[in-house]
């Protein structure tokens, strides 16, 4: 996750007060992070997911009480919107892999896009939160609004299942 830059609190307060130039500058600041979250989850629909996530962020901005919590708050919205957007777009493209590859699996480094395209959007979100954002199962479960056991089962027996599918 990102370190809040100096002056962030003032920028958030101005944007919450309806200053649209502040909204534009805040958009500039958080868009790269939202793109990095939406890309791996929504893949080809990443641009739509980014736009929808940013719209939700700025519609709800007045609900953010602590500007220092901005990036965690944005992350929760972006991941949910990306999963929603990808699910909507992916109804005709069923996932092939039932599990998420284990940490450090060399195939992740070799062709992560191929791995991602074979997972469901929710599984991609679990993988992204674990490997890129460093969240544990409990935090990931809270972010995705599912039971911790669900995340655990998505991550378990990963290597075997992943390897089988990869080698086919």
């Amino acid at each position: 996750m990102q370190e809040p830059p100096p002056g962030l609190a003032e920028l958030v307060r101005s944007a919450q007060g309806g200053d649209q130039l502040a909204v534009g500058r805040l958009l500039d600041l958080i868009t790269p992070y939202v793109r990095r979250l939406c890309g791996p989850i929504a893949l080809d629909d990443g641009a739509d997911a980014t736009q929808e996530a940013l719209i939700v962020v700025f519609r709800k901005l007045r609900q953010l009480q602590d500007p220092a919590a901005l990036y965690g708050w944005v992350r929760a919205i972006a991941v949910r919107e990306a999963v929603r957007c990808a699910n909507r777009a992916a109804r005709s493209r069923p996932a092939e892999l039932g599990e998420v590859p284990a940490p450090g699996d060399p195939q992740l480094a070799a062709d992560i896009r191929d791995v991602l395209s074979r997972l469901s959007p929710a599984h991609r979100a679990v993988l992204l939160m674990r490997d890129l954002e460093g969240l544990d199962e409990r935090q990931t479960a809270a972010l995705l609004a599912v039971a911790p056991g669900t995340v655990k089962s998505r991550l378990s027996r990963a290597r075997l299942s992943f390897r089988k599918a990869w080698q086919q």
Partner: protein
Amino acid sequence: MTDSPTPMPQWPVADFDPVRRLHVIAATAPGAARIGETVLGAPFERVWALAQDLERTMPLWIPDVRTVRLDRPAPSGSLPTTSLRARIHGHTRLRATFGIDLAPGWCLMQSRLVLGGMAARPETDRTTRFAFLGGLRFPGARLLAPALRPFTGDPLARFAALLEEEQDEE
């Protein structure tokens, strides 16, 4: 020989552009904002050179703008975001000081009551997607939506005509 470390995965990053960013502003600005977009038959550099020449060209394509006076010259080229102020007078009652953020492919401006913006991105080597936003910043502005028509009605068509006109002159 040592083992090379496992390379880090190159996670895909979602595309995004200024036109999409202007849609986010239009969808979330308080008051009432309308956005329109079109694809112009000219490369991005040509389109943006015309659009960012605010003092000269805004009165030629934005219906209610008569004069634009910047507090200092707008930079040309590819500088990151520059903040400017402008005094804008209209043909009707518009008479206001605007704060402006200007960057390649991006311009957002607001006065106390009015919000305006334009955004552009290359569509192909020879075409450019161009968006224009006009809005009113006060509560209840949605009730005045018809009042926005002169601001958003045909500026895109006027901008396209101006672009064509200036291309013909070259």
